[in-house]
Protein backbone atom coordinates (compact mmCIF):
# COMPACT_ATOMS: atom_id res chain seq x y z
CA UNK A 1 0.00 0.00 0.00
CA UNK A 2 2.71 2.42 1.05
CA UNK A 3 4.30 1.80 -2.33
CA UNK A 4 1.53 3.79 -3.95
CA UNK A 5 1.15 6.43 -1.26
CA UNK A 6 3.78 8.58 -2.97
CA UNK A 7 1.89 8.37 -6.24
CA UNK A 8 -1.26 9.48 -4.43
CA UNK A 9 0.52 12.63 -3.33
CA UNK A 10 1.54 13.23 -6.91
CA UNK A 11 -2.06 13.16 -8.18
CA UNK A 12 -2.45 16.91 -8.76
CA UNK A 13 0.85 17.01 -10.58
CA UNK A 14 0.04 14.02 -12.77
CA UNK A 15 -3.33 15.48 -13.77
CA UNK A 16 -1.72 18.82 -14.54
CA UNK A 17 1.11 17.20 -16.43
CA UNK A 18 -1.28 15.25 -18.63
CA UNK A 19 -3.90 17.91 -19.22
CA UNK A 20 -1.87 21.10 -19.42
CA UNK A 21 1.49 19.92 -20.70
CA UNK A 22 1.66 16.50 -22.34
CA UNK A 23 -1.54 16.68 -24.38
CA UNK A 24 -0.98 20.30 -25.49
CA UNK A 25 2.61 19.44 -26.36
CA UNK A 26 1.55 16.68 -28.73
CA UNK A 27 -1.45 18.72 -29.79
CA UNK A 28 0.70 21.53 -31.10
CA UNK A 29 2.82 19.06 -33.02
CA UNK A 30 -0.32 17.74 -34.65
CA UNK A 31 -1.66 21.23 -35.32
CA UNK A 32 1.58 22.20 -37.00
CA UNK A 33 0.70 19.76 -39.79
CA UNK A 34 -2.76 21.19 -40.26
CA UNK A 35 -4.57 24.17 -41.59
CA UNK A 36 -6.72 25.50 -38.77
CA UNK A 37 -8.35 28.91 -38.53
CA UNK A 38 -10.79 28.19 -35.65
CA UNK A 39 -13.76 28.41 -38.00
CA UNK A 40 -13.73 24.83 -39.24
CA UNK A 41 -12.06 21.68 -37.93
CA UNK A 42 -8.30 21.34 -38.43
CA UNK A 43 -7.53 20.10 -41.93
CA UNK A 44 -4.45 17.89 -42.41
CA UNK A 45 -2.04 19.64 -44.73
CA UNK A 46 1.09 17.57 -44.30
CA UNK A 47 4.32 19.48 -44.50
CA UNK A 48 2.72 22.53 -46.14
CA UNK A 49 3.24 24.82 -43.15
CA UNK A 50 6.89 23.92 -42.80
CA UNK A 51 7.54 24.10 -46.54
CA UNK A 52 5.99 27.52 -46.66
CA UNK A 53 7.99 28.65 -43.63
CA UNK A 54 11.32 27.65 -45.05
CA UNK A 55 10.83 28.41 -48.71
CA UNK A 56 8.69 31.49 -49.14
CA UNK A 57 8.07 33.18 -45.78
CA UNK A 58 10.38 36.17 -45.68
CA UNK A 59 8.91 37.42 -42.44
CA UNK A 60 9.88 34.14 -40.81
CA UNK A 61 13.43 34.33 -42.13
CA UNK A 62 13.77 37.87 -40.86
CA UNK A 63 12.22 37.00 -37.52
CA UNK A 64 14.43 33.96 -37.06
CA UNK A 65 17.59 35.94 -37.84
CA UNK A 66 16.61 38.69 -35.45
CA UNK A 67 15.81 36.16 -32.73
CA UNK A 68 19.19 34.44 -33.06
CA UNK A 69 21.01 37.78 -33.01
CA UNK A 70 19.03 38.79 -29.94
CA UNK A 71 19.72 35.60 -28.01
CA UNK A 72 23.40 35.43 -28.90
CA UNK A 73 24.03 39.00 -27.85
CA UNK A 74 21.78 39.21 -24.80
CA UNK A 75 22.72 35.99 -23.02
CA UNK A 76 26.54 36.36 -23.11
CA UNK A 77 26.37 40.07 -22.26
CA UNK A 78 24.05 39.49 -19.35
CA UNK A 79 26.03 36.58 -17.95
CA UNK A 80 29.38 38.33 -18.33
CA UNK A 81 28.06 41.37 -16.56
CA UNK A 82 26.43 39.30 -13.80
CA UNK A 83 29.67 37.43 -13.23
CA UNK A 84 31.74 40.62 -13.22
CA UNK A 85 29.58 42.26 -10.56
CA UNK A 86 29.34 39.05 -8.52
CA UNK A 87 33.14 38.82 -8.62
CA UNK A 88 33.52 42.32 -7.22
CA UNK A 89 30.84 41.72 -4.60
CA UNK A 90 32.62 38.59 -3.51
CA UNK A 91 35.44 40.61 -1.95
CA UNK A 92 34.62 41.03 1.68
CA UNK A 93 33.39 44.58 1.27
CA UNK A 94 31.29 46.42 3.77
CA UNK A 95 27.76 46.99 2.54
CA UNK A 96 27.70 43.98 0.25
CA UNK A 97 24.11 43.22 1.26
CA UNK A 98 23.04 46.69 0.31
CA UNK A 99 24.55 46.40 -3.17
CA UNK A 100 23.21 42.90 -3.64
CA UNK A 101 19.71 44.13 -2.88
CA UNK A 102 20.08 47.21 -5.07
CA UNK A 103 21.30 45.18 -8.03
CA UNK A 104 18.51 42.69 -7.58
CA UNK A 105 15.69 45.24 -7.71
CA UNK A 106 15.53 45.38 -11.55
CA UNK A 107 15.15 41.59 -11.67
CA UNK A 108 12.18 41.81 -9.35
CA UNK A 109 10.42 44.26 -11.62
CA UNK A 110 11.75 42.37 -14.59
CA UNK A 111 8.94 41.40 -16.87
CA UNK A 112 6.67 44.15 -15.65
CA UNK A 113 4.90 46.14 -18.32
CA UNK A 114 5.63 49.25 -16.29
CA UNK A 115 9.35 48.75 -16.89
CA UNK A 116 8.82 48.26 -20.60
CA UNK A 117 6.89 51.52 -20.53
CA UNK A 118 9.72 53.19 -18.67
CA UNK A 119 12.14 51.92 -21.32
CA UNK A 120 10.09 53.59 -24.02
CA UNK A 121 10.42 56.86 -22.20
CA UNK A 122 14.09 56.77 -21.34
CA UNK A 123 15.13 55.72 -24.85
CA UNK A 124 12.83 58.25 -26.54
CA UNK A 125 14.52 60.80 -28.78
CA UNK A 126 14.48 63.36 -25.96
CA UNK A 127 14.63 60.77 -23.23
CA UNK A 128 16.97 60.27 -20.34
CA UNK A 129 19.54 58.21 -22.25
CA UNK A 130 19.96 60.76 -25.01
CA UNK A 131 20.14 63.56 -22.46
CA UNK A 132 23.00 61.71 -20.80
CA UNK A 133 24.73 61.09 -24.15
CA UNK A 134 24.45 64.76 -25.09
CA UNK A 135 25.69 65.84 -21.67
CA UNK A 136 28.75 63.66 -22.20
CA UNK A 137 29.36 65.35 -25.53
CA UNK A 138 27.88 62.74 -27.87
CA UNK A 139 25.28 62.84 -30.58
CA UNK A 140 21.74 61.84 -29.64
CA UNK A 141 20.88 58.35 -30.90
CA UNK A 142 17.70 57.46 -32.74
CA UNK A 143 16.93 54.37 -30.67
CA UNK A 144 13.56 53.31 -32.00
CA UNK A 145 13.71 54.69 -35.53
CA UNK A 146 16.89 52.94 -36.56
CA UNK A 147 16.72 49.19 -37.28
CA UNK A 148 20.21 48.62 -35.88
CA UNK A 149 19.36 50.15 -32.49
CA UNK A 150 15.82 49.08 -31.66
CA UNK A 151 16.66 45.49 -30.82
CA UNK A 152 19.57 46.63 -28.71
CA UNK A 153 17.25 48.55 -26.36
CA UNK A 154 15.61 45.22 -25.51
CA UNK A 155 19.01 43.60 -25.02
CA UNK A 156 19.88 46.43 -22.63
CA UNK A 157 16.60 45.96 -20.78
CA UNK A 158 17.32 42.29 -20.17
CA UNK A 159 20.95 42.93 -19.25
CA UNK A 160 19.69 45.50 -16.78
CA UNK A 161 18.04 42.56 -15.01
CA UNK A 162 21.25 40.70 -14.36
CA UNK A 163 20.41 40.42 -10.65
CA UNK A 164 19.16 36.85 -10.42
CA UNK A 165 22.09 35.46 -12.44
CA UNK A 166 24.37 37.54 -10.23
CA UNK A 167 22.92 36.15 -7.02
CA UNK A 168 23.50 32.60 -8.27
CA UNK A 169 27.08 33.44 -9.27
CA UNK A 170 27.70 35.10 -5.94
CA UNK A 171 26.45 32.10 -3.98
CA UNK A 172 28.77 29.86 -6.01
CA UNK A 173 31.73 32.21 -5.57
CA UNK A 174 31.21 32.24 -1.84
CA UNK A 175 31.26 28.47 -1.70
CA UNK A 176 34.70 28.21 -3.31
CA UNK A 177 37.25 26.89 -0.86
CA UNK A 178 39.48 29.82 0.22
CA UNK A 179 42.52 27.57 0.58
CA UNK A 180 42.63 27.17 -3.20
CA UNK A 181 43.17 30.92 -3.57
CA UNK A 182 45.80 30.91 -0.84
CA UNK A 183 47.67 28.07 -2.51
CA UNK A 184 47.56 29.91 -5.83
CA UNK A 185 48.82 33.12 -4.20
CA UNK A 186 51.74 31.27 -2.59
CA UNK A 187 52.61 29.83 -5.98
CA UNK A 188 52.78 33.39 -7.27
CA UNK A 189 49.67 33.29 -9.47
CA UNK A 190 48.41 36.74 -10.46
CA UNK A 191 44.84 37.65 -9.76
CA UNK A 192 43.97 37.35 -13.43
CA UNK A 193 45.44 33.86 -13.75
CA UNK A 194 43.74 32.78 -10.55
CA UNK A 195 40.44 33.98 -11.96
CA UNK A 196 40.90 32.19 -15.28
CA UNK A 197 42.36 28.94 -13.98
CA UNK A 198 40.70 28.52 -10.60
CA UNK A 199 37.56 30.65 -10.30
CA UNK A 200 36.13 30.06 -13.76
CA UNK A 201 36.57 26.24 -13.77
CA UNK A 202 34.94 26.00 -10.34
CA UNK A 203 32.09 28.17 -11.55
CA UNK A 204 31.36 26.16 -14.70
CA UNK A 205 28.39 24.29 -13.18
CA UNK A 206 26.57 27.54 -12.39
CA UNK A 207 27.68 29.13 -15.65
CA UNK A 208 26.14 26.13 -17.39
CA UNK A 209 22.93 26.42 -15.34
CA UNK A 210 22.61 30.17 -15.94
CA UNK A 211 23.41 29.74 -19.62
CA UNK A 212 20.60 27.24 -20.19
CA UNK A 213 18.01 29.10 -18.14
CA UNK A 214 18.80 32.47 -19.69
CA UNK A 215 18.87 31.04 -23.20
CA UNK A 216 15.50 29.28 -22.89
CA UNK A 217 14.10 32.51 -21.52
CA UNK A 218 15.65 34.80 -24.13
CA UNK A 219 14.21 32.73 -26.98
CA UNK A 220 10.76 33.43 -25.54
CA UNK A 221 11.11 37.18 -25.14
CA UNK A 222 7.73 38.76 -25.77
CA UNK A 223 6.95 41.74 -23.52
CA UNK A 224 9.98 43.77 -24.55
CA UNK A 225 9.38 43.89 -28.28
CA UNK A 226 5.59 43.92 -27.88
CA UNK A 227 5.54 47.03 -25.70
CA UNK A 228 8.78 48.84 -26.44
CA UNK A 229 9.35 48.51 -30.17
CA UNK A 230 6.23 46.72 -31.47
CA UNK A 231 8.64 44.58 -33.45
CA UNK A 232 9.83 47.51 -35.54
CA UNK A 233 11.24 49.35 -37.27
CA UNK A 234 11.20 47.24 -40.44
CA UNK A 235 10.68 44.13 -38.30
CA UNK A 236 14.17 44.60 -36.86
CA UNK A 237 12.95 43.53 -33.42
CA UNK A 238 10.18 41.19 -34.55
CA UNK A 239 11.20 38.20 -32.42
CA UNK A 240 9.66 34.79 -33.12
CA UNK A 241 7.33 34.77 -30.09
CA UNK A 242 5.82 37.99 -31.39
CA UNK A 243 5.34 36.43 -34.82
CA UNK A 244 3.73 33.34 -33.25
CA UNK A 245 1.42 35.53 -31.21
CA UNK A 246 0.35 37.51 -34.27
CA UNK A 247 -0.26 34.41 -36.35
CA UNK A 248 -2.19 32.64 -33.60
CA UNK A 249 -4.15 35.34 -31.85
CA UNK A 250 -4.48 38.07 -34.45
CA UNK A 251 -4.74 36.14 -37.71
CA UNK A 252 -6.06 32.99 -35.98
CA UNK A 253 -3.89 30.80 -38.16
CA UNK A 254 -3.37 28.20 -35.44
CA UNK A 255 -1.75 25.57 -37.65
CA UNK A 256 0.86 27.91 -39.05
CA UNK A 257 1.55 29.44 -35.64
CA UNK A 258 2.07 25.95 -34.20
CA UNK A 259 4.58 25.19 -36.93
CA UNK A 260 6.59 28.31 -36.05
CA UNK A 261 6.36 27.39 -32.38
CA UNK A 262 7.73 23.96 -33.14
CA UNK A 263 10.62 25.35 -35.14
CA UNK A 264 11.42 27.61 -32.19
CA UNK A 265 11.09 24.68 -29.81
CA UNK A 266 13.40 22.48 -31.87
CA UNK A 267 16.01 25.25 -32.00
CA UNK A 268 15.88 25.67 -28.23
CA UNK A 269 16.00 21.94 -27.69
CA UNK A 270 18.93 21.38 -30.03
CA UNK A 271 20.90 24.19 -28.41
CA UNK A 272 20.08 22.83 -24.95
CA UNK A 273 21.18 19.34 -25.98
CA UNK A 274 24.38 20.74 -27.48
CA UNK A 275 25.02 22.54 -24.22
CA UNK A 276 24.37 19.38 -22.19
CA UNK A 277 26.48 17.24 -24.50
CA UNK A 278 29.38 19.69 -24.59
CA UNK A 279 29.13 20.24 -20.84
CA UNK A 280 30.99 16.97 -20.33
CA UNK A 281 33.97 18.70 -21.87
CA UNK A 282 33.87 22.03 -20.11
CA UNK A 283 31.80 21.75 -16.94
CA UNK A 284 33.92 20.82 -14.00
CA UNK A 285 32.29 19.05 -11.08
CA UNK A 286 34.63 19.08 -8.14
CA UNK A 287 32.91 16.08 -6.58
CA UNK A 288 33.31 17.58 -3.13
CA UNK A 289 30.85 19.27 -0.80
CA UNK A 290 29.32 21.36 -3.57
CA UNK A 291 26.09 19.65 -4.44
Amino acid at each position, binding site marked *: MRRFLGLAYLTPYIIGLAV*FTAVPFLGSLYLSFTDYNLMSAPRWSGLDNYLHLFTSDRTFRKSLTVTLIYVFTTVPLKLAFALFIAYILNYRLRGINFFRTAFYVPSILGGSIAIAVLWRY*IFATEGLVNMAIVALGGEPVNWFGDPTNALFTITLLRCWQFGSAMVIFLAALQSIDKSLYEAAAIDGSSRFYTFIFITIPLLTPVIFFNLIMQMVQAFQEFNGPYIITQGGPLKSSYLLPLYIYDEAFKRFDMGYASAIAWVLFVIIMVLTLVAFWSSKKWVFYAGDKRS
Partner: protein
Amino acid sequence: MTDATLTLARVQAKRRRQKARLGAAMRYLVLISVGLVMLYPLIWLIGASFKTNSEIFANPGFWPQNATLDGYIEGWKTSTPFSFGTFFLNSFKIILPKVIGTAISCTVVAYGFARFDFPLKKLFFGSVIAILLLPNVVTRIPQYLLFRDLGWLDSYLPLWVPSALAGDAFFVFMLVQFLRAIPADMEEAARVDGANSWQTLLFIVVPMLAPALISVALFQFMWTMNDFLGPLIYVSSVDKYPVSLALKLSIDTTEAFAWNRILAMSVLTILPALIVFFAAQKYFIEGISAGGIKG
Protein backbone atom coordinates in the same frame (compact mmCIF):
# COMPACT_ATOMS: atom_id res chain seq x y z
CA MET B 1 67.14 39.74 10.98
CA THR B 2 68.97 42.91 10.11
CA ASP B 3 67.49 46.36 10.25
CA ALA B 4 67.56 46.65 6.49
CA THR B 5 65.44 43.58 5.82
CA LEU B 6 63.08 44.62 8.60
CA THR B 7 62.56 48.03 7.00
CA LEU B 8 62.10 46.37 3.62
CA ALA B 9 59.44 44.06 5.05
CA ARG B 10 57.71 47.04 6.63
CA VAL B 11 57.74 49.02 3.42
CA GLN B 12 56.38 46.06 1.50
CA ALA B 13 53.63 45.52 4.02
CA LYS B 14 52.70 49.18 3.84
CA ARG B 15 52.67 49.07 0.06
CA ARG B 16 50.46 46.00 0.14
CA ARG B 17 48.05 47.73 2.49
CA GLN B 18 47.95 50.77 0.24
CA LYS B 19 47.32 48.60 -2.76
CA ALA B 20 44.52 46.79 -0.95
CA ARG B 21 42.95 50.09 0.02
CA LEU B 22 43.20 51.33 -3.56
CA GLY B 23 41.65 48.10 -4.78
CA ALA B 24 38.76 48.44 -2.35
CA ALA B 25 38.23 52.04 -3.44
CA MET B 26 38.14 50.96 -7.09
CA ARG B 27 35.63 48.27 -6.31
CA TYR B 28 33.36 50.67 -4.48
CA LEU B 29 33.67 53.09 -7.36
CA VAL B 30 32.53 50.41 -9.82
CA LEU B 31 29.72 49.20 -7.57
CA ILE B 32 28.41 52.67 -6.84
CA SER B 33 28.53 53.84 -10.45
CA VAL B 34 26.89 50.64 -11.71
CA GLY B 35 24.29 50.96 -8.95
CA LEU B 36 23.54 54.55 -9.87
CA VAL B 37 23.21 53.82 -13.58
CA MET B 38 20.97 50.86 -12.78
CA LEU B 39 18.71 52.48 -10.29
CA TYR B 40 18.52 55.97 -11.73
CA PRO B 41 15.85 55.06 -14.31
CA LEU B 42 13.63 53.87 -11.46
CA ILE B 43 14.36 56.93 -9.38
CA TRP B 44 13.69 59.13 -12.39
CA LEU B 45 10.40 57.29 -12.99
CA ILE B 46 9.18 58.10 -9.50
CA GLY B 47 10.20 61.75 -9.82
CA ALA B 48 8.76 62.07 -13.31
CA SER B 49 5.38 60.74 -12.23
CA PHE B 50 4.97 63.94 -10.19
CA LYS B 51 6.10 66.24 -12.98
CA THR B 52 3.98 68.20 -15.41
CA ASN B 53 3.90 66.84 -18.94
CA SER B 54 6.01 69.67 -20.27
CA GLU B 55 8.70 68.95 -17.73
CA ILE B 56 9.08 65.21 -18.25
CA PHE B 57 11.29 65.40 -21.33
CA ALA B 58 12.91 68.68 -20.35
CA ASN B 59 14.21 67.89 -16.89
CA PRO B 60 16.50 64.87 -16.49
CA GLY B 61 16.64 65.43 -12.72
CA PHE B 62 14.68 63.57 -10.11
CA TRP B 63 13.08 66.51 -8.34
CA PRO B 64 9.97 67.97 -10.04
CA GLN B 65 10.06 71.75 -10.45
CA ASN B 66 6.28 72.08 -10.25
CA ALA B 67 5.19 68.98 -8.43
CA THR B 68 1.68 67.88 -9.30
CA LEU B 69 -0.56 64.94 -8.53
CA ASP B 70 -2.33 65.29 -11.86
CA GLY B 71 -0.72 62.17 -13.26
CA TYR B 72 -2.03 60.09 -10.39
CA ILE B 73 -5.47 61.66 -10.26
CA GLU B 74 -6.13 61.59 -14.00
CA GLY B 75 -4.30 58.31 -14.56
CA TRP B 76 -6.27 56.54 -11.85
CA LYS B 77 -9.53 57.44 -13.57
CA THR B 78 -8.36 55.97 -16.91
CA SER B 79 -10.18 56.53 -20.18
CA THR B 80 -12.43 53.55 -19.48
CA PRO B 81 -15.51 53.47 -17.22
CA PHE B 82 -13.32 51.72 -14.65
CA SER B 83 -10.63 53.09 -12.38
CA PHE B 84 -7.29 51.50 -11.63
CA GLY B 85 -8.89 50.35 -8.36
CA THR B 86 -10.91 47.85 -10.37
CA PHE B 87 -7.81 46.65 -12.18
CA PHE B 88 -5.84 46.19 -9.00
CA LEU B 89 -8.71 44.22 -7.52
CA ASN B 90 -8.76 42.08 -10.67
CA SER B 91 -5.05 41.38 -10.35
CA PHE B 92 -5.58 40.21 -6.80
CA LYS B 93 -8.45 37.99 -7.91
CA ILE B 94 -5.90 36.16 -10.03
CA ILE B 95 -3.04 36.30 -7.56
CA LEU B 96 -4.91 34.97 -4.53
CA PRO B 97 -6.11 31.61 -5.90
CA LYS B 98 -2.88 31.20 -7.84
CA VAL B 99 -0.58 31.71 -4.86
CA ILE B 100 -2.67 29.55 -2.52
CA GLY B 101 -3.13 26.85 -5.14
CA THR B 102 0.57 26.81 -5.94
CA ALA B 103 1.63 26.61 -2.31
CA ILE B 104 -0.74 23.75 -1.48
CA SER B 105 -0.27 21.66 -4.60
CA CYS B 106 3.51 22.07 -4.76
CA THR B 107 3.88 21.17 -1.08
CA VAL B 108 1.89 17.98 -1.49
CA VAL B 109 3.73 16.96 -4.65
CA ALA B 110 7.17 17.83 -3.28
CA TYR B 111 6.36 15.76 -0.18
CA GLY B 112 5.48 12.83 -2.41
CA PHE B 113 8.73 13.16 -4.33
CA ALA B 114 11.01 13.74 -1.36
CA ARG B 115 9.66 11.21 1.15
CA PHE B 116 8.27 8.24 -0.77
CA ASP B 117 9.44 5.59 -3.14
CA PHE B 118 7.01 4.50 -5.78
CA PRO B 119 6.95 3.04 -9.27
CA LEU B 120 8.04 5.41 -12.05
CA LYS B 121 9.39 7.95 -9.58
CA LYS B 122 12.45 8.66 -11.72
CA LEU B 123 10.31 9.19 -14.77
CA PHE B 124 8.01 11.62 -13.00
CA PHE B 125 10.84 13.56 -11.46
CA GLY B 126 12.46 13.68 -14.89
CA SER B 127 9.25 15.24 -16.17
CA VAL B 128 9.57 18.01 -13.55
CA ILE B 129 12.98 18.91 -14.97
CA ALA B 130 11.64 18.62 -18.51
CA ILE B 131 8.79 21.03 -17.76
CA LEU B 132 11.30 23.34 -16.15
CA LEU B 133 13.11 23.58 -19.47
CA LEU B 134 10.10 23.26 -21.76
CA PRO B 135 9.40 26.56 -23.51
CA ASN B 136 5.79 27.57 -22.85
CA VAL B 137 5.50 28.79 -26.38
CA VAL B 138 5.11 25.23 -27.64
CA THR B 139 2.06 24.38 -25.50
CA ARG B 140 0.34 27.75 -25.60
CA ILE B 141 -1.89 27.30 -28.62
CA PRO B 142 -3.42 23.91 -27.70
CA GLN B 143 -3.87 25.18 -24.14
CA TYR B 144 -5.82 28.08 -25.56
CA LEU B 145 -7.99 25.69 -27.57
CA LEU B 146 -8.52 23.53 -24.51
CA PHE B 147 -9.63 26.47 -22.37
CA ARG B 148 -11.87 27.63 -25.19
CA ASP B 149 -13.56 24.23 -25.29
CA LEU B 150 -13.96 24.29 -21.52
CA GLY B 151 -15.63 27.69 -21.83
CA TRP B 152 -12.95 29.34 -19.70
CA LEU B 153 -12.02 32.14 -22.08
CA ASP B 154 -12.40 35.62 -20.61
CA SER B 155 -12.21 34.22 -17.09
CA TYR B 156 -9.29 33.92 -14.71
CA LEU B 157 -9.36 30.13 -14.60
CA PRO B 158 -6.76 29.58 -17.36
CA LEU B 159 -4.42 31.85 -15.44
CA TRP B 160 -4.42 29.97 -12.16
CA VAL B 161 -5.81 26.45 -12.49
CA PRO B 162 -2.66 24.99 -14.11
CA SER B 163 -0.59 26.43 -11.26
CA ALA B 164 -2.97 24.98 -8.69
CA LEU B 165 -2.17 21.56 -10.16
CA ALA B 166 1.53 22.01 -9.42
CA GLY B 167 2.13 23.16 -12.97
CA ASP B 168 5.00 25.48 -12.05
CA ALA B 169 7.73 22.88 -12.02
CA PHE B 170 10.20 25.37 -10.68
CA PHE B 171 8.42 25.53 -7.32
CA VAL B 172 8.06 21.76 -7.10
CA PHE B 173 11.76 21.44 -7.77
CA MET B 174 12.67 24.08 -5.22
CA LEU B 175 10.56 22.49 -2.48
CA VAL B 176 11.90 19.00 -3.22
CA GLN B 177 15.45 20.32 -2.90
CA PHE B 178 14.52 22.03 0.34
CA LEU B 179 12.86 18.93 1.78
CA ARG B 180 15.77 16.69 0.85
CA ALA B 181 18.03 18.87 2.96
CA ILE B 182 15.83 18.31 6.02
CA PRO B 183 16.39 14.99 7.84
CA ALA B 184 13.25 12.87 8.12
CA ASP B 185 13.82 12.01 11.82
CA MET B 186 10.92 14.07 13.14
CA GLU B 187 8.55 12.58 10.62
CA GLU B 188 9.77 9.12 11.53
CA ALA B 189 9.07 9.84 15.20
CA ALA B 190 5.59 11.08 14.36
CA ARG B 191 4.95 7.92 12.37
CA VAL B 192 6.05 5.76 15.27
CA ASP B 193 3.66 7.71 17.48
CA GLY B 194 0.85 6.71 15.15
CA ALA B 195 0.46 9.74 12.87
CA ASN B 196 -0.48 8.89 9.32
CA SER B 197 1.40 10.41 6.40
CA TRP B 198 -1.18 13.12 5.89
CA GLN B 199 -0.95 14.25 9.52
CA THR B 200 2.83 14.13 9.32
CA LEU B 201 2.72 16.39 6.29
CA LEU B 202 0.35 18.84 7.92
CA PHE B 203 1.86 19.06 11.40
CA ILE B 204 5.55 18.28 10.88
CA VAL B 205 6.58 19.00 7.30
CA VAL B 206 4.57 22.13 6.57
CA PRO B 207 5.92 24.07 9.58
CA MET B 208 9.46 23.10 8.61
CA LEU B 209 8.81 24.14 5.01
CA ALA B 210 7.46 27.52 6.06
CA PRO B 211 10.44 29.64 4.97
CA ALA B 212 10.56 27.93 1.57
CA LEU B 213 6.81 28.35 1.20
CA ILE B 214 7.15 32.06 1.86
CA SER B 215 9.66 32.23 -0.99
CA VAL B 216 7.25 30.34 -3.24
CA ALA B 217 4.37 32.66 -2.38
CA LEU B 218 6.47 35.79 -2.90
CA PHE B 219 7.82 34.74 -6.27
CA GLN B 220 4.45 33.60 -7.47
CA PHE B 221 2.92 36.88 -6.31
CA MET B 222 5.42 38.92 -8.26
CA TRP B 223 5.41 36.83 -11.39
CA THR B 224 1.63 36.91 -11.48
CA MET B 225 1.55 40.64 -10.87
CA ASN B 226 3.96 41.09 -13.79
CA ASP B 227 2.38 38.52 -16.08
CA PHE B 228 1.25 40.12 -19.29
CA LEU B 229 1.04 37.49 -22.01
CA GLY B 230 -1.38 35.24 -20.05
CA PRO B 231 -4.01 37.92 -19.48
CA LEU B 232 -3.40 39.28 -22.99
CA ILE B 233 -4.42 35.94 -24.46
CA TYR B 234 -7.21 34.95 -22.09
CA VAL B 235 -8.84 38.10 -20.71
CA SER B 236 -10.76 40.14 -23.25
CA SER B 237 -13.32 42.28 -21.42
CA VAL B 238 -11.94 45.51 -20.04
CA ASP B 239 -13.82 45.15 -16.75
CA LYS B 240 -11.77 42.00 -16.07
CA TYR B 241 -8.38 43.47 -16.98
CA PRO B 242 -5.57 43.06 -14.45
CA VAL B 243 -3.19 46.00 -14.01
CA SER B 244 -0.65 44.81 -16.59
CA LEU B 245 -3.26 44.88 -19.36
CA ALA B 246 -4.79 48.08 -18.03
CA LEU B 247 -1.42 49.79 -18.22
CA LYS B 248 -0.97 48.68 -21.82
CA LEU B 249 -4.49 49.91 -22.54
CA SER B 250 -3.73 53.29 -21.05
CA ILE B 251 -0.68 53.64 -23.29
CA ASP B 252 -2.86 52.96 -26.30
CA THR B 253 -5.78 55.15 -25.33
CA THR B 254 -4.37 58.03 -23.31
CA GLU B 255 -4.20 61.16 -25.40
CA ALA B 256 -0.74 62.06 -26.66
CA PHE B 257 1.38 64.17 -24.34
CA ALA B 258 -0.40 62.96 -21.18
CA TRP B 259 2.81 61.21 -20.24
CA ASN B 260 2.60 61.76 -16.51
CA ARG B 261 -0.56 59.66 -16.24
CA ILE B 262 1.15 56.67 -17.76
CA LEU B 263 4.25 57.14 -15.64
CA ALA B 264 2.17 57.57 -12.49
CA MET B 265 0.26 54.37 -13.17
CA SER B 266 3.55 52.60 -13.94
CA VAL B 267 4.78 53.57 -10.51
CA LEU B 268 1.61 52.21 -8.89
CA THR B 269 1.96 48.99 -10.89
CA ILE B 270 5.44 48.24 -9.63
CA LEU B 271 4.77 49.44 -6.10
CA PRO B 272 3.26 46.20 -4.70
CA ALA B 273 6.19 44.16 -5.98
CA LEU B 274 8.70 46.66 -4.56
CA ILE B 275 7.03 46.76 -1.15
CA VAL B 276 6.86 42.98 -0.95
CA PHE B 277 10.48 42.69 -2.03
CA PHE B 278 11.83 45.12 0.50
CA ALA B 279 9.70 43.69 3.28
CA ALA B 280 10.92 40.16 2.64
CA GLN B 281 14.11 40.36 0.60
CA LYS B 282 15.88 37.69 2.60
CA TYR B 283 13.40 35.11 1.32
CA PHE B 284 14.01 36.16 -2.26
CA ILE B 285 17.76 35.93 -2.10
CA GLU B 286 17.55 32.58 -0.31
CA GLY B 287 14.98 31.34 -2.78
CA ILE B 288 17.21 32.05 -5.77
CA SER B 289 20.33 30.71 -4.17
CA ALA B 290 18.51 27.53 -3.17
CA GLY B 291 16.81 26.68 -6.41
CA GLY B 292 18.41 28.81 -9.03
CA ILE B 293 15.80 30.92 -10.70
CA LYS B 294 14.67 32.54 -13.85
CA GLY B 295 14.43 36.27 -14.02
